[in-house]
């Protein structure tokens, strides 16, 4: 049934969107996302989808139009990267505050200045507090699978929140990989028809979206929004279970690799996890019990589950492909918050790697694992946050 193909991450996501057949999409170019929505535009031009596109004049307008379209009542998608996501920032909060299940692949790219078009996670990390669900993907297969599952999660009647699917710019968006497509009909059945919720176009019940709410109720609105986020992880798992039946591919809220009995571990997002796994195998071969944890659901962040998965280790390095200048890396902040609640917890360090598309090499993983071994033995972390792969 499933079809094995060799495609890029962008192509895979474009195909997932084609199979879902959204009602409206916003399109605006930005490297490295551009060719994803370009491909989707061809599907529209060739009549392969029913989607009406809005060829906006900016990403701010793209997200604004997506919000209008989603509020009107239907399935809405767009995709972006980097500066585009940054330009949307204001509107991202409005999409989530209005509880609109817009789906947006984010092809991760560095933020200016200096201008750089290559992959890192600064864009999506900058959007982590916008109230969007974030699913992260190691490769084209995961980006494809996450995109399809994102619709089910976001449109779940208990959730109704927007979701971004993150994949690494160029490394995944533009490299050809072998992966499997589901049949069109399978995806259609899996996602199901769009279920309306407070549609603006219901003319008989005129509604107002976007009121002014001051001190009397704003705090309550945000409390309600927080509550919805607490339900997301269970829905992600429920959807993943259904998806596994369909595809044979198993997803959780994070993935672990040789972590169960590990003494030392690396926590890392997206494509760099692949390289890291290979190096972990090498260390295992040398008798060093190394493991990995790769978060899939970053928002909401599964604090308890991640703490449970890591607390038996002796030392953990959280690797960030983004920096919070004057702070630790964003992933580190989450993992250390998670572990603080554990009675027994590993030593923690934070490495910043791969900014602006700087290669992440097996030697970097090896360097980190070697240091972790020392830390585990000595019981001491010398520098908590450090850049690696950087020229002095």
């Amino acid at each position: 049934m499933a079809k094995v193909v060799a495609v890029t991450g962008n192509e895979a996501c474009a195909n997932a969107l084609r199979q879902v057949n959204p009602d409206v999409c916003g399109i605006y170019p930005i490297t490295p996302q551009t060719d994803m929505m370009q491909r989707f535009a061809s599907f529209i031009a060739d009549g392969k989808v029913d989607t009406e596109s809005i060829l906006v004049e900016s990403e701010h307008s793209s997200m604004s139009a997506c919000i209008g379209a989603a509020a009107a009542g239907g399935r809405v998608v767009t995709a972006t990267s980097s500066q585009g996501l940054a330009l949307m920032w204001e509107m991202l909060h409005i999409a989530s505050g209005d509880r609109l299940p817009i789906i947006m692949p984010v092809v991760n790219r560095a933020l200016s200045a200096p201008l750089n078009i290559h992959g890192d996670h600064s864009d999506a990390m900058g959007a982590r507090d916008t109230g969007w669900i974030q699913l992260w993907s190691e490769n084209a297969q995961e980006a494809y699978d996450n995109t399809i599952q994102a619709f089910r999660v976001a449109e779940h009647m208990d959730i109704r929140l927007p979701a971004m699917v993150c994949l690494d710019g160029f490394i995944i968006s533009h490299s050809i990989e072998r992966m499997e497509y589901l049949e069109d009909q399978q995806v259609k059945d899996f996602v199901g028809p769009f279920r309306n919720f407070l549609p603006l176009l219901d003319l008989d019940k005129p509604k107002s979206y976007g009121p002014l709410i001051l001190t009397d109720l704003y705090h309550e609105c945000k409390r309600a929004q927080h509550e919805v986020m607490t339900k997301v992880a269970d829905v992600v798992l429920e959807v993943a279970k259904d998806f596994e039946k369909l595809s044979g591919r198993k997803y959780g809220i994070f993935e672990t690799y040789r972590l169960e009995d590990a003494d030392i571990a690396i926590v890392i997002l997206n494509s760099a996890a692949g390289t890291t796994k290979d190096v972990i195998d090498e260390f295992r071969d040398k008798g060093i019990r190394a493991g990995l944890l790769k978060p899939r659901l970053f928002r909401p962040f599964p604090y308890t589950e991640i703490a449970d998965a890591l607390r038996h280790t002796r030392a953990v390095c959280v690797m960030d492909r983004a920096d919070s200048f004057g702070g630790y890396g964003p992933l580190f902040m989450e993992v250390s918050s998670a572990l603080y609640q554990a009675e027994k917890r590993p030593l923690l360090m934070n490495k910043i790697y791969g900014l602006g598309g700087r290669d992440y090499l097996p030697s970097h993983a090896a360097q980190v694992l070697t240091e972790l071994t020392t830390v585990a033995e000595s019981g001491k972390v010398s520098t908590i946050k450090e850049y690696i792969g950087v020229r002095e």
Partner: protein
Amino acid sequence: MKAKGWRDLPPGSVVLEGGSAVKFKTGSWRAFRPIWIEENCIQCLFCWIYCPDMAVEVKDGKRTEFDYDYCKGCGICALECPGRKGQKAIVMAEEGK
């Protein structure tokens, strides 16, 4: 009325009832009160069309009373009222006097 808790709010803070602002009476804002002098009224309905607060009631195409629940007392109606033979059909009076 008990203030709403977070569980009572509609999702996305969407206002579910169109035109619900009618429950919010703005008449208390008024410092001046328009008074209709029926005998001077030529039923031109200018007061109705120009009232920013939809506070002039019209029934079957004829103006009746002011809706003092909403009238903010701006005086536009009085200024625009042509009246009959130079006699205004709306005059403004200080509230509470």
